[in-house]
């Protein structure tokens, strides 16, 4: 049995799908052996069919099933039982969310610390709005007072520095001796640093100037 090109083309899909009888298959392949154009066509279509079979089905949108169920069964009740209440728990394990929560927790710690609340010594009455406000108010005032004290200290140091500027070689000792009440001398403001390069005046003169200056400075506020 010999098939022509038309017959071969007509039965091509049945050949690909393995639906030809043995005799038909023999006739088919013997034609292919003699006809390059049919052989090429078979190769082309077979490849296409195999590719289509291997093709993965497109994914339906996730909400589609729910939409269909709503349309058929009507709006359904949400899942009953405890599962529903804890359904959000796995989401907490996501790194991005966990990092966000850690940041929020850290902010709370900072805020609580500023408000003067320590978890160890926390009492029930500490949680009332009035005591939180009082504690926060106290902290703010304390911080403000510390700031004022610091600024005043700085001012003293700067004034001493500016008075000493024309001095030749003032030593560090006379500066510290008459100001024992200064608790927070600012770092890097040691007069020695700037005045080292200017030679000239005597130590006695420095003492006089400092005494005069300290007399003017009001320490009552800063030492509170």
């Amino acid at each position, binding site marked *: 049995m010999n098939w022509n090109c038309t017959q071969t083309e007509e039965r091509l899909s049945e050949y690909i799908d393995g639906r030809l009888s043995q005799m038909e298959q023999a006739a088919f392949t013997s034609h292919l052996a003699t006809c390059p154009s049919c052989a090429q066509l078979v190769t082309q*279509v077979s490849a296409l069919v195999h590719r289509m*079979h291997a093709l993965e089905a497109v994914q339906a949108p996730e909400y589609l099933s729910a939409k269909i169920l709503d349309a058929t*069964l009507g709006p359904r009740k949400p899942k009953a039982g405890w599962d529903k209440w804890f359904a959000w728990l796995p989401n907490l394990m996501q790194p991005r969310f966990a990092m966000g929560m850690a940041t929020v927790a850290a902010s709370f710690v900072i805020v609580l610390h500023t408000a003067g609340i320590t978890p160890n010594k926390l009492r029930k009455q500490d949680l009332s709005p009035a005591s939180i406000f009082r504690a926060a108010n106290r902290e703010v005032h304390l911080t403000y007072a510390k700031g004022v004290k610091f600024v005043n200290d700085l001012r003293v140091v700067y004034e001493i520095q500016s008075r000493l500027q024309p001095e030749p070689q003032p030593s560090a000792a006379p500066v510290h001796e008459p100001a024992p009440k200064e608790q927070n001398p600012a770092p890097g403001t040691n007069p020695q640093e700037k005045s080292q390069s200017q030679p000239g005046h005597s130590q006695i003169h420095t003492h006089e100037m400092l005494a005069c200056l300290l007399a003017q400075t009001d320490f009552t506020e800063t030492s509170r």
Partner: protein
Amino acid sequence: MESDAQLVVHCLRGDGPAWEELVRRHTRRVFNLCYRFTNNSTEAEDLSQEVFLRVYRTLSSYRPAFGGFPTWLTSVTRNLLVDHYRRSRRERMTDSIEDMMPVIEEKQSSARTPEKLAHASELSQQLQRGLAKLSPDLREAVILRDLQGLEYNEIQTVLQVPEGTVKSRINRGRLELARILEGMGFRE
């Protein structure tokens, strides 16, 4: 796991979860068929919903003797797609005498990026464009056989045509699609 036939029996007794399972099991198949046929994900979603509404209403008419539940579902889907095709062609005919195919192609560009949604590969997209150029009869035969994996006799049941017609449509569809893809510059 319960079989589809068992689930259908439960559904007919008014068992909601059985219907839920049936829907979840087959949504992808129905959506695929609709998407391959319309080449538009939004339209495919609407049609899938319509299919399941129809199935829900006519579930009592399903007989296991008809063939597997998927085959029955495929025929319901296919009938709805044919209705949809006729409807949209009629609508189109009132505007102009253009064929259905250009309509499908135009719609694709305005649709919600089906590629993204479907994670379609280059081949899938090429194929989709090629399929859109086939005549509806040949297109559905190729989709049912090669993308839905139905056997010849199942396709015969779905399309309600003689076996010879099924064979001929599958064959002509494949040959035509291969030529179209070649013309589009598609190489293996």
